[in-house]
């Protein structure tokens, strides 16, 4: 099962391809306000993460997610 560090690394790599400009991607980066992702892009990213981690990630985890760390923690719980 993927742990927090593995998931964070995968997500960081993925975000680099999704995020326009030179924003720094950190655990406390907010997906919408700091990284400029919209709701569709966030859902696309979840689908990409499912493929990278070979697991199913329900969209239900998203409403509680604001930051990169929130998302990694949510994915870690799903993976557990």
């Amino acid at each position, binding site marked *: 099962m993927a742990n927090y560090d593995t998931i964070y690394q995968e997500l960081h790599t993925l975000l680099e391809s999704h995020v326009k400009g030179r924003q720094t991607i950190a655990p406390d980066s907010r997906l919408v306000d700091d990284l400029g992702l919209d709701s*569709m892009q966030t859902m696309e990213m979840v689908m990409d993460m499912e493929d990278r981690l070979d697991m199913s990630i329900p969209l239900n985890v998203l409403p509680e997610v604001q930051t990169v760390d929130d998302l990694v923690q949510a994915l870690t719980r799903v993976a557990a």
Partner: protein
Amino acid sequence: MSIFDKFAAIAATRERIAATGVDPLGVPVDEIHSATEAVVRGRPTILAGSNNYLGLTFDDDCVAAGVAALRSEGTGTTGSRMANGSYAGHLALEAELAAFYGVGHAIVFSTGYQANLGMLSALAGSQDIVMLDADCHASIYDGVKLGGSQALRFRHNDAADLDKRLGRLGERAADTLVVVEGVYSMLGDRAPLAAICKVAHRHGALVYVDEAHSLGIYGETGSGVAEDEGIREQVDFIVGTFSKSLGAAGGYGVSRHAELDMVRYASRPYIFTASPVPSVIATTRAALERLQAAPELRTQLWRNAERLHAALTEAGFKLGAPPGPVVATMFDTPEAALFFWQGLLDQGVYVNLMLPPATPNGWCLVRASLSAGHSDAQIDHIIDAFLTLGRSERDAAVG
């Protein structure tokens, strides 16, 4: 901190759009003259973005049926069917829809949005999984959310991707409802429904198809893409709307599964809302009869759609899908789409402007929808408007 703070970003976007002098979000229709003609800001305008596919909103039989129902049954039902009972028209329309689809069961909802909300929230509960095509309509996402099921997505129109994701679920794939649309409203592209059904059923999943933009357009009798692909009996649930090809308002779900009747008792959007008003039920029944009795409407719609698609393709526009009643032109930036949309309106052609995040893949679209009610002269006018604007853009780019 205020409950109004969340509107600040929306207000800023709204102001940015207003500053361009173009207002695509609140077009005032001063007068409506027919299925395809209106007066917009004092200018006679061809309606080419209203999803009025069969042009039945002013059909004599439909209007007469609505007027007669208003006179005989009044203006509304003043409550839900649970509380106030089912009118004869509700029951008759459900029987007619079931017969049209060749299934045993049908439910009518008060809007098309509520059809997806009501069906999906009742069918898929917290122990179930819903696998959505990524490009599904907001009403589908909202219905899944209301039901509290686990929502997963597969890549748009990609049966192989669906196969992979259902495979990941293992035995839980059998608790899964696969949800797709016959035709997707933004680009007008149709689902590879036979391939999707084959994959879903191999994994033991059920299939739910929204034919909102395909009813009256595809299939020998006009029931939609499932019929056109010869797999209607393989689809577990079909939903649709009365607000497009049938020119009214409301929605429906049909199924060969007797359990559909239980949805009535488990669906909050069905139980806790007023039932469809009698005049709307009456016009819908008349329109469904016209749809079946007048296949020439479908022929004319396709003729109009193919003319516009061919002309725009030849002129070099980038279109979102093969020929069909939705013709979506793709632009590189929101501004380009915005000014093209306004340019069409200035030439008396009303279409839809679709911008991210409402669109898949961040596309900027000027979306036309054709109607059987469009005359040859109106199609000529629409084509001329597109080509004139396209030439102006090219000249500006060169100049």
